[in-house]
């Protein structure tokens, strides 16, 4: 095994690497790329493609995918940091080490709370747009009054129905966290099932959309299934627009929609892991896989939106999403018409409706709860090790599962889910983007100053990390670009068009609470630990070597 090390290049190359090197071979870029792209949130395009046009009327759907590219600097920050500090464990350590532990905690906390927030929200989505839409679509396709009535009951969270929805959502949330408590193997098996389901859904949707007969067929199906004339929708467009018709395509709306909505699909894809082993070698697999997965995602979004527009009709989606700025499409159809729901207008075959539509969306949503809570659970675990959360959070079960941290994350997600069902405070998902981007602003700043604040670590980093252009370290440039992208994204979340649930004051309060909470927790923890004789401020202080 040590022979791989002796491929001597340059002055002695790897000639003098000991047998006990811990050296491993690097993973091929293709392997890293495939695995990086395999992410369970791809099918949320079925929701986001509709909602982004409601939030930002005038957004050019397929073009919003270009806005995945501004995330590249942030993805590369993670890559560079993990090459420099391969055993550090993410933004918590990077920022704590470069700036200070409080900011490190805040940066990591924001991403943690976003993941937990989503888990709570997704369980409500699973009821409304998974089960609710499934019953409604199947009922309409098969003219089954019972299914229709169930669907109407579950697809919108009204004051009369919220208790039942809350109970079902709690069960869905609980089932996902139960799998998590069973350990990594159980989670991986579940995720593979979800992934296969997603791909079946996507391929089925693409085939139906390509061969069902286009917009004419869709509109005919709409009228047949919904019992509503399409002219009622076009009339509503004229009413909402004051006679102006559908909004013209606007670059600004497209940019904001992409920054906020397309990027929602990428949460989790920047968790880069260094796999280069003990001897620091530049591992091109990682930067290539990050870039490659973003390019793949970009291509995927283009294909998805093009296919959806072909099968459903561009104006179909735009008209409904536009009148839903006033909630009118949702009222008219008794549900938010996600792209997965719209499958029932393309075909009334009950099997195809399920496979390509709401059933698969339900499975994907459940998988999303699981996938998006992984990192938050790990982070809660890490916070507990560092005395920021109580010690019992880092206890593990006999099979090594961090079940206390899982329980805490479940409780947090469940509280958020409950608040979102019984109030409108946190129901608008763009709030989470605001919070998330605050974390990335802090990370970007840390990246900018890294070469100077921690020169000792920077100068021990691989050549790629230390590389410069015109004398400026690339990591500094990436940090600046990442900070700008994150700051602009925060701004974009304040520009969301009027919807029934969006409220700017709620957004500000939500962001403030979730960003201020870690500061409060930090100072409570420091005070508490000091009383026990533990000096928290020494945790990250550099010991002088001389």
């Amino acid at each position, binding site marked *: *095994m*040590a022979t791989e090390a002796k491929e001597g290049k340059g*002055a*002695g*190359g790897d*000639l*003098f690497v*000991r*047998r*006990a090197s*811990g*050296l*491993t*071979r*690097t*993973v091929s870029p293709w392997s*890293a790329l495939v*695995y*990086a792209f*395999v*992410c369970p949130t791809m099918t949320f395009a079925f929701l986001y493609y509709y909602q982004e046009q409601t939030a930002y009327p005038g957004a050019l759907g397929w073009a919003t995918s270009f806005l995945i590219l501004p995330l590249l600097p942030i993805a590369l920050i993670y890559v560079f940091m993990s090459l420099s*500090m391969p*055993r550090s464990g993410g933004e918590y350590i990077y920022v704590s080490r470069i700036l200070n532990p409080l900011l490190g905690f805040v940066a990591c906390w924001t991403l943690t709370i976003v993941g937990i927030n989503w888990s709570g929200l997704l369980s409500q989505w699973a009821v409304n747009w998974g089960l609710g839409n499934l019953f409604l679509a199947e009922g309409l396709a098969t003219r089954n009054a019972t299914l229709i009535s169930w669907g109407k009951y579950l697809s919108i969270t009204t004051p009369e129905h919220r208790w039942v929805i809350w109970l079902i959502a709690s069960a869905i949330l609980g089932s996902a966290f139960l799998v998590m408590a069973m350990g*990594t193997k159980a989670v991986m098996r579940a*995720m593979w099932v979800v*992934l296969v389901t997603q791909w079946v859904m996507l391929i089925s949707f693409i085939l139906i959309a390509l061969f069902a007969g286009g917009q004419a067929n869709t509109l005919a199906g709409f009228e047949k299934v919904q019992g509503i004339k399409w002219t009622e929708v076009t009339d509503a467009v004229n009413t909402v627009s004051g006679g102006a018709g559908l909004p013209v395509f606007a670059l600004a709306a497209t940019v904001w929609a992409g920054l906020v909505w397309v990027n929602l699909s990428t949460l*989790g894809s920047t968790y*880069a892991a260094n*796999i280069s*082993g*003990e*001897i*620091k070698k530049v591992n091109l697999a990682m930067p290539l*896989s990050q870039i490659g997965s973003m390019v793949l995602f970009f291509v995927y979004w283009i294909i998805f939106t093009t296919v959806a527009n072909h099968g459903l009709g561009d104006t179909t989606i735009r008209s409904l999403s536009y009148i839903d700025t006033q909630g009118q499409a949702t009222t008219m159809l008794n549900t938010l018409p996600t792209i997965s729901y719209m499958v029932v207008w393309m075909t009334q075959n009950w099997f195809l409706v399920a496979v390509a539509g709401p059933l698969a969306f339900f499975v994907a949503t459940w998988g999303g709860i699981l*996938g998006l809570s992984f990192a938050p659970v790990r982070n809660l675990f890490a916070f507990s*090790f560092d*005395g920021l959360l109580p010690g019992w959070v880092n*206890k593990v079960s006999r099979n*090594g599962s961090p079940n206390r941290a899982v329980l805490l994350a479940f409780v947090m997600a469940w509280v958020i889910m409950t608040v979102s069902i019984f109030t409108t405070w946190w129901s608008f998902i763009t709030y989470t983007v605001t919070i998330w981007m605050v974390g990335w602003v802090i990370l970007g700043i840390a990246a900018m100053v890294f070469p100077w604040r921690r020169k*000792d*670590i920077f*100068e*021990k*980093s*691989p*050549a790629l990390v*230390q590389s410069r252009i015109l004398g400026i370290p690339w990591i500094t440039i990436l940090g600046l670009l990442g900070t700008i992208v994150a700051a602009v994204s925060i701004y974009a979340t304040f520009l969301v068009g009027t919807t029934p649930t969006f409220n700017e004051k709620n957004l500000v309060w939500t962001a403030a609470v979730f960003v201020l909470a870690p500061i409060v927790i930090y100072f409570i923890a420091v005070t508490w630990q000091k009383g*026990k*004789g*533990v*000096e*928290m401020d*020494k*945790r*990250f*202080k550099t*010991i*002088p*070597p*001389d």
Partner: protein
Amino acid sequence: MAATRIFFTTDTHGSSVCFRKFINAGKFYDAHVLILGGDITGKKVIPFVRQADGSYKVNHLDREQLIAEGEQLEALKRNITDMGYYPYMTDEREVEQLGGDPAAQDAIFKDLMKARMRESLQIADERLEGTGIRCYVQPGNDDEYDIDELFDGGTSVVNPEGKVIQIDENHTMISTGHANITPWNCPRDVSDERLEAMIEAMTSQVTDFERCIFNFHCPPYDTVLDQAPELDDQMRPSLEMGGKPHMVPVGSPAVRRAIDKYQPRLGLHGHIHESRGSQKLGRTLCLNPGSEYGEGVLRGVIIDIEKKGIKSFTFTSG
């Protein structure tokens, strides 16, 4: 009775800056006892190949540089030393000769290792003299047996391998730096059966396990402390969904059995740099602070231990 404060770190792998930080950690953290749990020698020699014009060609961190003698050269040597590697001044002819002579390479490695170890122990002697701080440094599975003799002459640093040590008036400690067999067949990798026998040889001398510390370099099997990337037969990490390495337990079943059987107060472990964490096995608190020696960061854990139990522990990143 005041608590005894222990500072434990591990896997410094020859990093000069990490060892110096370790010695200074006593004063920095107000610790009474310093323990370095194993893997204290470096993994790589970096040749500085003299060129005809007097400059040196150096290949380090995937970058080949030509450096003239002077401050820049010294700074690079310090950087390499701090990362745990050994700078070696040589020339093209010698490099060519050594390419076909593994025994000569080994000899150079051992000389450099011992020289740095000697220097480190000297620094420890100078800085710890008169402080009352007790210092224990044990070789780990990565370390050649050749360095053991260097501990015989030192006054401040004790190699606790195979011994029962009185840490304070209440607690004893038994130690071994050996580990179960790894894919790299390291110098002190032994079969799990042999490791069990080595542990039993020490436990037979302990009378009070409730106040005993197991300073075993290898962590117990199948805990949060022994998770490492799974390697395929080509020594490549296996990936799972999302691009993350697939982690598997690689610790020692013998260590696990010993802890389960004897239930000491505390288990101090290293070996797996990625697996920083704590886990209770019955009443035994097991700790692994992880390692980031390559970045010059000294990961450790401060443990305050009293007669009645462990008062507190705090992971540090110095």
